[in-house]
């Protein structure tokens, strides 16, 4: 308090003679004001403190020195010239004096001053806070123009911002790294050992090894095959594969290169790397939001991605197909139609989207446009374009004009599920499960018929009660019976009412809608009616349709309750959207019109920039060609950075979706550029990148780090070791890998590729968890009937936005609503429940035990046989033999648990055939019950159950359960 009192006193004194102070400024402070302080005030302060004189926050007007010296509501001058530490302005911008009531300024964390900006403010105040007049400012600026320009960073040419300040602003060169033309840096020489470094990846890394720390030795072959197999396939190696590799007589280098080749040839490679891609593009089988409608054909996009990786489709081609496959198809020769090109465009629609009758159609359309703009920018260019939706980008040279130019490319892009024949490579098996949906359809129709009959009966009673003549009613019933009503099902009471109205019967003499309904009937009617609507979406799964787009005018749609189809007159009917800059991102506040284009900071690429024309069709192909051009500086860098991250668990540029100023800078920029240039040179071959990266020493190093520096804590050395690639960074298996690995070792995994989504067993309570969707309740999760269907890889599990499998969620599988550039791997307690307590893991453990016992046969004596079985268990789960004491411990446990199991009885669980739910009916606010049939249960073949297993087998299963929970199983080193 004393300090404050003193400050006030000083302020009063100085405030008396501001003119005198300002009249004798030191020249550097004056220059500083002209160059830094005035623009800084304008950027950070004046929005609240002067731009709008009627709304000046806190009474502080910062437009003039007089205003600053007058101060605001505190009635204290904001600056004490010469004394920053006594100046509230300085205290506020430091954000460190809130305890003394100087609130942090600017208020938002995003706007806080940089260290450099803080230093300017301090220096200016310390220098007497000079405030030259306009004439003097112009003079200063003029005489210093060349010097400032040389020092202040680089101006960047763009299409221009909303203000000249933004257009003319300068950028630090280090924040523009990603836009620099891609050249292939020279591979560094390490001392005179150039010849010793066979792989350029290692040369680039070695050039930046921290002093005093040495690389870890190469990992042993057992570790390596497990690492590489999980990396490329998402599965553990088999015991036999381990033996072959360990015993390979070739050199370590050669043997490993052969291994990588073998793995890249496996069809499971595309599943694992396709999964990475699906994280980025937000793959899901439903639309999210209120209805969370099934997207029947998205599985074909998922399989397209898997095939693309497996066939090593050149990445530039992969880009073009996903952005503009439909346009490529139209340009291609009619003799060779490739329906896959339509399937690929599913990428553009991967985000959550719907249009309900509640929403304004234009707003929903704009949501799609914003989503696709953001998604293309983020996925292929490493740019979060949405940052420029409402204002020019705060940090990157991306003006709002570019955002809408980019968006204009998509303003003729329309959503539709389009006919596309199944290709020979696609898995169209399992379509017989359509019968369950048909059974459900019959069920709903029967429900509605029952309710209709009820209404008809009540209507007759209504006539009787009122003593109206029922004849006209019966005539109407006669007329509509056997006809099809407007909802595409047999006409009923609603159609009878319509018929009466058509006959001119006054409304007062027509019985009311839904007459005769008991309170629960409202709910039943709604569930059946909405259920039929939802089934249409699901039934598309079995049709030769692509979840795709087309180019054309925007049709007028009020609500989307059926899957969308392409209209015949797409070029003629509907609105031809003309994209404008939308003020504040609001589709009802259009400003200047913009033409379709790409990012102006990257500029024209060859002839590509101008190729984005204004025609209805072809815009996306032009943009795709621009993105996929070999000299687009962003595209190749973004993809090799992703590849690197998926191999090493850390990216070279730490935010693969953000190559702008706020993203992490590359740790090894030359390596990133070298890889990107090499990627393009090798025909955008992703597999070539795998071979290059995986055969480096960096990839093959041990994760066990040899501590060197006694003065530095081990954990710190390890951090440095891992971030500089001196040692390999271990990782926990991703959720899908964890489940797939369990299925692999238990012998249950069905390795089939592709096809319609499957439904593995989910925690039963979660599977039956009632879930509201618009106007009704979503269908229960019914597991696929056959074990071989359920035990497909996790990639093929139906992925609903509104009902994620808790197992995947708890192990950090990302939500499909946001693009995931890298997975999290936090350890949280519920993971233990999911892996140690769940029926699913118990089932895997029992199957694993059964596999071991079956494979061992009955040939050898008990003790020896048990040891063989346990040895095999370790080889399968950990890819190594047990140590003697481990073997002994496990043997003891097996026997002890077998004894315990002799006293336990298990009953065969019967899958529920229906589920009854209580809900609150929105019409009545009353609770009601409804029963949902679970059709699949009739055909359900359970996995091996404890009730079918001997105590010995169940005892062994307990050992297996523990192995599946062990750290050695969950981590890859």
């Amino acid at each position: 308090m004393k300090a404050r009192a003193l400050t006030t006193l000083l302020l009063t004194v100085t405030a008396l003679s501001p003119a005198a102070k300002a009249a004798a400024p030191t020249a550097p402070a004056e220059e500083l004001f002209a160059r830094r302080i005035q623009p800084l005030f304008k950027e950070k302060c004046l929005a609240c403190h002067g731009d709008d004189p009627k709304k000046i926050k806190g009474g502080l007007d910062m437009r003039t020195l007089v205003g600053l010296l007058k101060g605001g509501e505190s009635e204290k001058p904001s600056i004490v010239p010469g004394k920053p530490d006594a100046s509230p302005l300085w205290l506020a911008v430091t954000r460190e004096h809130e305890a003394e009531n100087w609130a942090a300024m600017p208020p938002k964390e995003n706007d806080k001053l940089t260290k450099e900006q803080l230093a300017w403010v301090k220096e200016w105040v310390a220098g007497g806070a000079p405030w030259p007049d306009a004439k003097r400012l112009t003079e200063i600026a003029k005489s210093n123009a060349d010097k400032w320009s040389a020092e202040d960073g680089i101006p960047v040419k763009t299409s221009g911002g909303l203000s000249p300040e933004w257009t003319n602003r300068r950028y630090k060169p280090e924040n523009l790294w990603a836009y620099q033309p891609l050249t292939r840096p020279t591979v560094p020489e390490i001392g005179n050992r150039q010849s010793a470094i066979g792989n350029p990846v290692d040369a680039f890394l070695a050039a930046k090894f921290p002093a005093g720390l040495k690389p870890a030795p190469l990992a042993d072959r057992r570790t390596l095959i497990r690492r590489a197999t999980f990396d490329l396939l998402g599965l553990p190696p088999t015991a036999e594969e381990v033996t072959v590799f360990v015993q390979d007589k070739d050199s370590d280098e050669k043997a490993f290169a052969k291994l990588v080749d073998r793995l890249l040839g496996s069809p499971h490679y595309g599943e694992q790397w396709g999964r990475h891609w699906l994280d980025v593009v937000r793959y899901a089988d439903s639309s999210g939001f209120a209805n969370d409608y099934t997207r029947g054909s998205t599985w074909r996009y998922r399989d397209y991605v898997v095939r693309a990786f497996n066939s090593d489709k050149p990445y530039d081609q992969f880009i073009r197909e996903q952005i503009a496959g439909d346009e490529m198809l139209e340009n291609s020769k009619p003799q060779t139609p490739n329906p896959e090109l339509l399937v690929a465009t599913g990428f553009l629609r991967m985000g959550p989207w719907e249009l309900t009758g509640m929403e304004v159609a234009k707003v929903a359309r704009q949501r799609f446009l914003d989503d696709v703009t953001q998604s293309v920018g983020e996925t292929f260019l490493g740019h979060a374009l949405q940052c420029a939706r409402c204002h020019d980008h705060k940090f990157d040279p991306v003006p709002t004009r570019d955002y809408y130019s980019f968006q204009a490319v998509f303003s003729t892009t329309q959503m539709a599920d389009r006919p596309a024949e199944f290709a020979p490579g696609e898995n169209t098996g399992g379509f017989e499960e359509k019968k369950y949906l048909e059974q459900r359809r019959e069920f709903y129709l029967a429900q509605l018929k029952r309710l209709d009959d009820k209404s008809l009966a009540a209507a007759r009673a209504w006539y009787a009660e009122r003593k109206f003549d029922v004849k006209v009613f019966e005539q109407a019933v006669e007329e509509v019976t056997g006809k099809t009503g407007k909802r595409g099902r047999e006409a009923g009471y609603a159609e009878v009412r319509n018929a009466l109205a058509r006959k001119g019967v006054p409304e007062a003499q027509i019985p009311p809608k839904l007459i005769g309904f008991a309170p629960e009937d409202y709910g039943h009617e709604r569930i059946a009616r909405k259920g039929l609507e939802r089934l249409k979406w699901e039934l598309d799964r079995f049709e030769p349709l692509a979840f795709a787009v087309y180019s054309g005018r925007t049709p007028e749609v009020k609500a989307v309750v059926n899957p969308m189809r392409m209209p015949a007159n797409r070029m003629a009917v509907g609105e031809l959207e003309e994209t404008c800059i939308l003020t504040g991102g609001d589709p009802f506040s259009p400003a200047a019109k913009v033409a379709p284009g790409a990012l102006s900071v990257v500029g024209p690429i060859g002839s590509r920039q101008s190729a984005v024309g204004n025609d209805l069709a072809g815009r996306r192909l032009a943009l795709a060609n621009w993105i996929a051009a070999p000299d687009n500086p962003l595209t190749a860098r973004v993809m090799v950075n992703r590849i690197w991250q998926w191999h090493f668990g850390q990216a070279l540029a730490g935010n693969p979706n953000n190559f702008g100023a706020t993203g992490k800078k590359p740790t090894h920029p030359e390596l990133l550029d070298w890889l990107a240039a090499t990627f393009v040179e090798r025909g955008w071959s992703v597999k070539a990148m795998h071979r290059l990266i995986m055969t480096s020493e960096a990839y093959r190093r041990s994760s066990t780090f040899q501590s060197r520096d006694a003065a530095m804590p081990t954990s710190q050395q390890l951090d440095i070791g891992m971030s500089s690639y001196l040692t390999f960074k271990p990782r926990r298996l991703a959720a899908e890998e964890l489940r797939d690995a369990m299925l692999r070792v238990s012998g249950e995994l069905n390795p089939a590729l592709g096809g319609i989504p499957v439904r593995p067993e989910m925690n039963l309570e979660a599977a039956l968890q009632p879930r509201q969707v618009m106007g009704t309740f979503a269908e229960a999760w019914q597991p696929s009937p056959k074990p071989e269907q359920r035990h497909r890889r996790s990639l093929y599990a139906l992925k609903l936005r509104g009902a994620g499998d808790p197992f995947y969620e708890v192990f950090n599988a990302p939500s499909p609503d946001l693009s995931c550039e890298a997975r999290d791997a936090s350890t949280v307690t519920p993971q233990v429940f999911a892996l140690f307590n769940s029926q699913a893991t118990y089932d895997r453990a029992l199957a694993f035990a059964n596999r071991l016992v079956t494979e061992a046969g009955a040939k050898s004596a008990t003790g020896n046989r048990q040891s063989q079985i346990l040895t095999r268990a370790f080889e399968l789960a950990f890819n190594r033999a047990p140590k003697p004491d481990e073997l002994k411990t496990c043997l003891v446990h097996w026997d002890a648990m077998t004894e315990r199991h002799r006293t336990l009885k298990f009953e065969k669980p019967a899958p529920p055939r229906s589920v009854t739910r209580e809900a609150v009916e929105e019409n009545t606010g009353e609770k009601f019950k409804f029963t949902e049939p679970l059709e699949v249960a009739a055909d359900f073949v359970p996995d091996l159950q404890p009730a079918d297993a001997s105590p010995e087998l169940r005892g062994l299963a307990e050992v297996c359960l523990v192995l599946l929970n062990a750290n050695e199983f969950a981590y890859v080193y």
Partner: protein
Amino acid sequence: MKPYFSCAGRRALHAPTRRDFVYSLGASLGSVAFSSLLAAETNSKLQTQNSKPASPLAPKEGHLPAKAKNCIFLMMEGGPSHIDTFDPKPKLAEMHLKEFVREGKMKSAMESGKRYYVQSPFKFRRAGQSGADIAENWEHLARVADDLCFFRGAQVDSVNHPTAMYQMNTGNRFGGDPAIGSWVTYGLGSANQNLPGFIVLPEVSYPQGGAANWGNGFLPAHFQGTPLRAKGSPILDLTPPKGISPEHQRQNLDLLAKLNTAHRETHAQHDELAARMDAYELAFRMQMEVPGILDLDKEDVRLKAGYGIGAEPTDAFGRKCLLARRLVERGVRFVQLYAGTWDSHDYIERAHGNLVRQVDQPIAALLADLKQRGLLDSTLIVWCGEFGRSPDNGVRGGTAYGRDHNPHAMTLWFAGGGVKAGHTIGATDELGDKAVTNIHHIRDVHVTLLNLLGLDDNKLTYFHGGRFKQLSQFGGQVIKELLA
């Protein structure tokens, strides 16, 4: 305690990364019985490379002096009608069943066709000394009217349930962002290290938009809302399959510990392995103790009757309200209760009537109980839906009228610590169609809520996707009129 590997995607500039922890109660319920482990570590000092880092849920100082320590958020999903609860519109009686057509560019299919103004089927009275407008069917709430602060100035952006729910719960209409409870526990930690800091008591049926309504978004998993399911196992897989006893499981855990310990010797540097070992022990103790926390048997019989427990239709929500008090009493930072669905497009008299009967007595009992225990001053209570309802009706399928969605007008009420009790702030027009005075976007309600809990929205930020993100999305202002 022990660091684990973290992921670059969710990692932010100042986010805990490798130095994050496990024993956190984490993504759902955390451990219950390990207070002894943590008691010494509830400091809020910044972690350094070599010091033992604090739990992410350890209590932390907020940015501002807090008016309330904890929050109970009563989420009336579906959109309760302000016109039929706390914002009477006598004018509608005059206009009853008058026809009109809704116009304008913002018209959706919901608003097309013939529409009719409809009066409220409920009578109103002025309750308490403050004379608060409360519909007569809120028989019990009237008793605590003077503890409430009604706010009629709020507006939201979305007319669809899930997007409006996401906006109310996370600030972001499109989902994927952290829920309020996640932000609050991220900012303040939670007093009780034996329970999650953010607990959700959903309806048996999950709301539209599902679990994302209480998701941690881009915040670390420790701040995720833990739903205690209304039926069945409160937490999925809390216990092993039938027939597996605790002793049985203990034996398995012992074998696991042996294998993990041996394994760790070969990978001694990687601390996350030890962390995962700890997680197993903690989970084991937790599954023993959680059921006791949920057990209301020891509560006073008369008190339970007061909450409407044991009677219909109040039993379910009464249990939630009493459990909410127990959780707050035990130091849980943020408890969110769901009741619904209030989406009464038709038969509003019957539908809202029934819903009010389900929640009225429990809510009044909760407020009285908190007050009696001296907890009301330190607890912030929020009552709201995701939007209000329209003064008119399209008379869709039903034979009796209801109301459609309305993002431009709604009523929320607050009670407890720091709230200007006994006041009604803001107003809607004479039809209840739009807020007209003291109009605030819902972001300002969020900023105000954080402020009451001692948090500054502009400082409660997390770097993600290239910028510092915050609950209000882009900043907002405190609604000073709501503060005592």
